[in-house]
């Protein structure tokens, strides 16, 4: 094994757990000099965690890392950089108020005779040289906040390489780039590869892998499934490795929605780069699942409909009538409820009790003519809801923070039911909830749909989407890339749409 000189990096049996999650379980990975190695997997498969361990951002719980045949210890980013391992994070890590050169040399500025003095001339000159090597046209003195995202990415690459990086890890580098910018990025990657740099490329865009990578490693549930040469596989094979067994695929539990009445229609919704030409319909009594990878724009759709983010253009119809929603209060008035993915932050006031939380969104209805709270009514309605939804709480006066995740989620549902909502948007309704509570939430969603509520369910768990939805809308990068009926849908087909980067539609 140690005789394997061309292997720049070997990671073996890496374990890593975070509170409540086993993020990596005996994961392995290897990288050769001069190769572009793609790392793929579903959300939460452990790709970023594994690479953050290699870059010294996280420390491993167990396992070993060999670098050029030697076992190494990488306790912090600095030590990884000194070994020549650099990472470009998904969220760019630049200081927008500083210039390109200042960003590249932050933390290791060349000093003048007096060691507290800066030498901006030197860093500008060195940066200019570095950028020239990479064939990037950029003035080192430009402020980073004045650059496009693509150019900022180039600055990150230049910064990584200025450490004489031999291993360069890129976490979803193309997520925010246009096609032309991606071409530029690929050119740089190819140049680096030819210079012998080992490149790890984490991406959700499978078709890209075939343009740029030599080998691909697939991860699932914190484990490494396989590493293969790219010419030996097809996209479909990669997808089936990513989603794995299909034992979760049960037929939808819900009887087909029989209503044809459209509750909500969205036409040509646009918001910057986040949402592009979103159009869909939602019928009464229907559950529509929104699938897609992280950052596909599903939550953004929900927030736009709910009036939480301003839209650039587009129309929203409720019950056939065009409505203007500028603010969440407009949405509530039109009978829309949004159950945020982060219920602790947006959905509940944790320090208040159960009954107060239940009535909070419809407080006005509980006031008497003097403007005082009608406590009897509050209690009656809360008690009813706690019973119907089977919320387990010792009393109505219990503080919400003391309830379990599942019961908190039910409480959010109770809250929106008192507000008389007809359209409910659930964003990751079962995140952080144990299996038993999950099935109760599923049952609740079914009941609500049967009562005629129209439901959008955003979920990153494909089995959940397949199990619950009448129809499935798949998004990728702010666009709807596919729509499937529950009969047509499979994990593979959803993944196909979710990784499909459609050509930019012409004209605005």
């Amino acid at each position, binding site marked *: 094994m140690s005789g394997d000189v061309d292997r720049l990096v070997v990671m073996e049996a890496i374990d890593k757990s975070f509170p409540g999650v086993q993020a990596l379980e005996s994961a392995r990975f290897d990288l050769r000099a001069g190769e572009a190695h793609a790392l793929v997997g579903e959300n939460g498969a452990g790709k970023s965690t594994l690479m953050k361990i290699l870059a010294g951002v996280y420390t491993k719980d167990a396992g070993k890392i060999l670098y050029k045949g030697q076992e190494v210890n990488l306790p912090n980013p600095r030590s990884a950089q000194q070994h020549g391992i650099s990472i470009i*994070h998904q969220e760019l*890590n630049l200081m*927008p*108020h*500083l210039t390109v050169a200042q960003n590249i040399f*932050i933390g*290791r*500025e060349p000093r003048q005779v007096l060691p507290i*003095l*800066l030498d901006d001339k030197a860093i500008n000159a060195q940066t200019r040289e570095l950028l020239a090597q990479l064939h990037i046209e950029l003035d080192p003195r430009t402020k980073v906040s004045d650059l496009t995202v693509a150019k900022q990415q180039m600055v990150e690459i230049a910064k990584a390489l200025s450490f004489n990086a031999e291993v360069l890890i890129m976490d979803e580098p193309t997520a925010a780039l246009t096609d032309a910018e991606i071409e530029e990025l690929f050119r740089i990657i190819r140049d680096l590869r030819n210079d012998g740099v080992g490149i790890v490329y984490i991406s959700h865009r499978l078709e890209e892998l075939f343009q740029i990578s030599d080998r691909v490693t697939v991860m699932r549930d914190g484990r490494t499934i396989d590493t293969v040469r790219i010419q030996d596989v097809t996209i479909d094979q990669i997808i089936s490795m990513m989603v794995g067994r299909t034992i979760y695929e049960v037929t939808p539990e819900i009887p087909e929605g029989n209503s044809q009445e459209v509750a909500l229609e969205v036409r040509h919704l646009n918001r910057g780069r986040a949402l592009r030409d979103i159009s869909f319909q939602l019928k009464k009594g229907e559950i529509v699942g929104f699938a897609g990878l992280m950052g596909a724009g599903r939550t953004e759709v929900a927030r736009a409909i709910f009036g939480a983010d301003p839209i650039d253009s587009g129309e929203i119809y409720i019950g056939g009538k065009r409505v203007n929603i500028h603010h969440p209060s407009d949405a509530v008035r039109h009978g829309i409820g949004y159950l945020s993915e982060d219920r602790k932050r947006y959905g509940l006031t944790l320090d208040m009790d159960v009954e107060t939380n239940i009535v909070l969104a419809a407080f006005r209805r509980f006031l008497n003519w003097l403007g005082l709270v009608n406590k009897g009514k509050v209690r009656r309605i809360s008690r009813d809801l706690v019973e119907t939804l089977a919320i387990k709480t010792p009393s109505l006066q219990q503080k919400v923070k003391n309830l379990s995740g599942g019961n908190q989620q039910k409480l959010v549902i109770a809250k929106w039911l008192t507000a008389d909502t007809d359209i409910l948007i659930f964003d990751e309704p079962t995140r952080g909830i144990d299996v038993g509570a999950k099935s109760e939430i599923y049952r609740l969603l079914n009941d609500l749909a049967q009562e005629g509520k129209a439901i959008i369910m955003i979920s990153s768990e494909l089995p959940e989407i397949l199990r619950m939805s009448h129809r499935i809308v798949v998004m990728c990068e702010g666009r709807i890339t596919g729509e499937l009926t529950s009969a047509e849908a499979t994990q593979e087909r959803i993944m196909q749409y979710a990784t499909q980067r459609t050509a930019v539609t012409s004209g605005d």
Partner: protein
Amino acid sequence: MDVSIAPKKASTRSVLRSDATRKFLAFGALIVLLVYFSLASPHFMTFNNVVGILLQTSVNGVLALGVTFVIITGGIDLSIGTVMTFSSVMSAIFCINWGLPVWLGVLGGMGAGALAGFINGTIISRMKVPPFITTLGIMYIAKGLSLVLSELRPIYFNAAPGFREIAMGSVIEKIIPGAEIPNAVLIMFGAAIFAGFLLNRTILGRYTLALGSNEEATRLSGVNVNFWKTMVYTVCGFFAGIGGVLMAARLNSAQPALGQGYELDAIAAVVIGGTSLSGGEGTIMGTIIGAFVMSVLVNGLRIMSIEQEWQIVITGGILILAVYMDVIRRRA
């Protein structure tokens, strides 16, 4: 049709957002005030009054210079007013109670300020107590210690005759007879040049900006964030120390009951000067201009015989207006 509009819009936008505009806003306000008061009163643009304004600005200006660094990192320092007083009292104790030479008293006063800043910075960066709370606490501590050490009484510098000269003597008059500009003014401009040098030419300044721009990225770049944050608060305290020495020299005494409220004037000057409270940007020139805007305003209103109570009201209005202009600029 759209084509002709789009780029034009983009260019007004970039002009509005540029640093030059930000500097111009405060500078423009200062010019407007100067012109307005000159026209409104013949007593405004006189040599004596201008020197009065400069002297009036000196202490607030020096305090504002220091807190500019802290605000650029995205922090705040509420303790500089009473730390200034603490520094005056320490100077007095060194010079009068201990009988040390004046220059040692001056250094001791500045050192006391720097020490207070160092304590602020250590608590904030190592113990992770929010800046607002930490410096609020140090504000009280410095105030209390000043009262304890001085035994509630002003300490006069009559026994150290050189001390008053630090602020009120005039080196310039010795060179140009008749130009009686007190040293305090020179010290303020000297401190401003020093602060500009620190911010723009040294590692400390670079990390000050980097911390305010993106602290996490700065940390990931291997910068010792805790150390540099502590240094930033130390610098701020050091400037408060200079302010304390100036104040004591101007009054020829250390006044232990003074000081509270000075921190807010200094922060107001920084903000008027275009430094963003959310961190990442700010200039020394802006701060100095901001400090002048405040003292010109007070002086001009007084000359126009507007009661002091109303001067305070107007100052508050100008502060909000200044920040609102900056908000508009950013939104553009």
